[in-house]
């Protein structure tokens, strides 16, 4: 019994020594906050990829300010990457910059620039592939092809990033935030400029898109397809080539957004194509060529929005049915409503129209004469577009007034029976 005691002692002592040594080493590396690995241009670790390779799942990698020329950095385990003072990762115009292929990765505070460009591959600043719960926060992306690319992800948050590119051609620019086949993503408070589509969603389910600013993009500020049950709220879409397009989806909520200055022959504040059972409330449409353009969309409720100084506030094709426009403000739009059919399968009620000239004898705030939002001039323009130059001419006003009194050419049933006398606040 006694003869193996020394061995036991040895083992015990060795263990204690090992433990001591290990704790002192880890104490040394974790001397400031909780970072596990520090990457700095002054070393010892000078490359992010190297740090990722060294790290174990759950580690925290802190990258100090400096320029790192690296591309296709593959993150294949659960890590937190934190930039201190916006370290710059220059992708050197080749491939992706960051690739995330693991769940629960967090990337924040980086300045990423110069991703690759390709006509075949969608190279991105941050490419996220089949990962869950990824958080991409407060990064700046500059001169990239695609910005943040989510493919087949679940949940995850993209918050407070700034994405900007300078390619003006639609065909050779990529999307700012691109989501394909994702579930429950949250896209919050980002700023996207100069991309092809600012925010692009295809086959996204349950997306929440809030507080983003998507301006000056070559095509759409937001391009939204086959994405049911989604919400977008409080975003601003300004001066995009073609405005915002929402297509082939149902149960979408569009709340408190601003659509402004989207000009052009095929430019819309909001294009609704095959959208069903959705709600558009509290939005502001300001100075767009067309405020809402509705094609094949049914049972959409358009309630309490402001349409101001648009070319055409609402262009509703007869393929759209049972949509309701209630309590909206239509203020000094060149044209309030345009439609392509003498019949009207939609409902307008209780809106404020600044062109309304009726009276309110019983003082209940509702005009006593119905309002006809489709002007004769709008039909004249459809036949002879050059006559647009006569807009706001006295002669045209007289023609419109005559038509309003005795409607012949304008749709007889497209009327607001209860136009409000004052602007709805």
């Amino acid at each position: 019994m006694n003869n193996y005691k020394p061995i036991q002692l040895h083992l015990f002592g060795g263990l204690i020594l090992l433990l001591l040594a290990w704790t002192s080493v880890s104490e040394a590396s974790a001397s400031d906050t909780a970072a596990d690995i520090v990457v700095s241009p002054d070393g010892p670790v000078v490359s992010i990829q190297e740090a990722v390779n060294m790290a174990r799942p759950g580690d925290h990698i802190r990258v100090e300010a400096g320029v790192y020329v690296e591309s296709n950095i593959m993150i294949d385990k659960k890590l937190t990457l934190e930039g201190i003072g916006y370290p710059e990762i220059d992708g050197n115009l080749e491939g992706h910059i960051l690739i995330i292929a693991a769940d629960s990765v967090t990337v924040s505070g980086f300045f990423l620039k110069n991703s690759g460009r390709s006509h075949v591959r969608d190279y991105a600043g941050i490419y996220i592939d089949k990962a869950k719960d990824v958080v991409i926060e407060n990064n700046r992306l500059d001169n990239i092809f695609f910005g943040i690319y989510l493919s087949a992800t679940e949940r995850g948050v993209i918050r407070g990033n700034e994405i900007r590119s300078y390619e003006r051609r639609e065909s050779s620019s990529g999307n700012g935030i691109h989501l394909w086949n994702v579930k429950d993503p949250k896209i919050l408070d980002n700023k996207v400029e100069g991309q092809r589509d600012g925010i692009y969603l295809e086959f996204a389910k349950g997306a929440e898109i809030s507080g983003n600013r998507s301006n000056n993009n070559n095509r759409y500020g937001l391009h939204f397809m086959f994405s049911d049950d989604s919400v977008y709220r409080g975003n601003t879409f300004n001066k995009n080539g073609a405005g915002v397009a929402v297509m082939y989806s149902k149960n979408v909520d569009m709340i408190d957004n601003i659509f402004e200055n989207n000009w052009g022959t095929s430019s819309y504040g909001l294009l609704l194509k095959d959208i069903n059972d959705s709600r558009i409330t509290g939005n502001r449409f300001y100075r767009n060529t067309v405020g809402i353009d509705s094609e094949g969309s049914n049972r959409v409720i358009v309630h309490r929005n402001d349409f101001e100084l648009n070319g055409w506030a609402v262009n509703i094709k007869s393929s759209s049915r049972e949509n309701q426009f209630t309590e909206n403000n239509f203020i000094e739009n060149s044209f309030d409503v345009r439609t392509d059919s003498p019949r009207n399968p939609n409902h307008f009620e209780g809106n404020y129209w600044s062109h309304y000239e009726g009276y309110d004898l019983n003082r209940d705030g509702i005009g006593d004469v119905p309002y006809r939002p489709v002007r004769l001039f709008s039909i004249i323009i459809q036949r002879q577009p050059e006559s647009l130059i006569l807009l706001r001419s006295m002669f045209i006003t007289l023609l419109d007034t005559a038509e309003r009194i005795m409607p012949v050419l304008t749709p007889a049933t497209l009327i607001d029976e209860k136009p409000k006398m004052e602007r709805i606040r």
Partner: protein
Amino acid sequence: MEEDENIKKLNPVEMKLLTHIIKNEWKTLIRGKWVIGYGLIFLILTDTLLRFGGGGAEVLLSLSNVMLLFIPLVGMIYGILYIYQSREFVELLLTQPINRKTLFWGLFCGISTPLMAAFVVGAMLPLGWHGILAQDPGASVMVLALGGMLTLIFVALGFVLGLAFYEDRIKGFGFTIVIWLFMAILYDGLILMAIFTFGDYPLERFVIAATMLNPIDLARIMVLLEFDISALMGYTGAVFRQFFGTNSGILTASGMLVLWLAVPAWIGLRVFKKKDF
């Protein structure tokens, strides 16, 4: 000889005379009070629109509608009326050793600037105290400037008509009304008719050229450029796009407006100089 006199600049004595005539006209007009009434109309109108209408764009557009319709009429009537009413006074002045050119400019500026000022001040004050001027300065200044310019143009036209029909007042007033009706309403009807008649041909250039020939349409186009640009950009034609989408539209239109002031004023001056009163 006469051409030389035209080109020759006014010497200091004549300059002094010019300002003297202008000052005198201002005094007479303000004593007459109805210029003040005219300004008050715009003041009350703009203020009422702002109290009941709401937003800045709405009010500026209503104001510009009123302006496009009435300023030409008032300006012309006022110009021609002045020529008829102050016949004795003008003829008296002509007996004095005063250069006719100086006298013409003195009378024209003395008449048109108070009227212009009445509109500009009358409309500007409510825009100022309701905060529209600060909130939307570009559009406000443009509407006010257009109103001012239209006043000058149509007073000049009124002068020309007055001088042309110096003896026949009924004819003069008749022409004034007809010209106003034509420019304000019928002209656009004719353009629309032309568009529908020749609809199969490319008409953009013709349509733009046609609107350039009518000062009321010119002013209207400038209002469109400010407030309806989003609708105008919805048009597919390249010529419109070039005209409205770049600065060329606003430059051409303002250039044509200046021309519309210069030509009638020059004609008026020529007639005035040669006329045997």
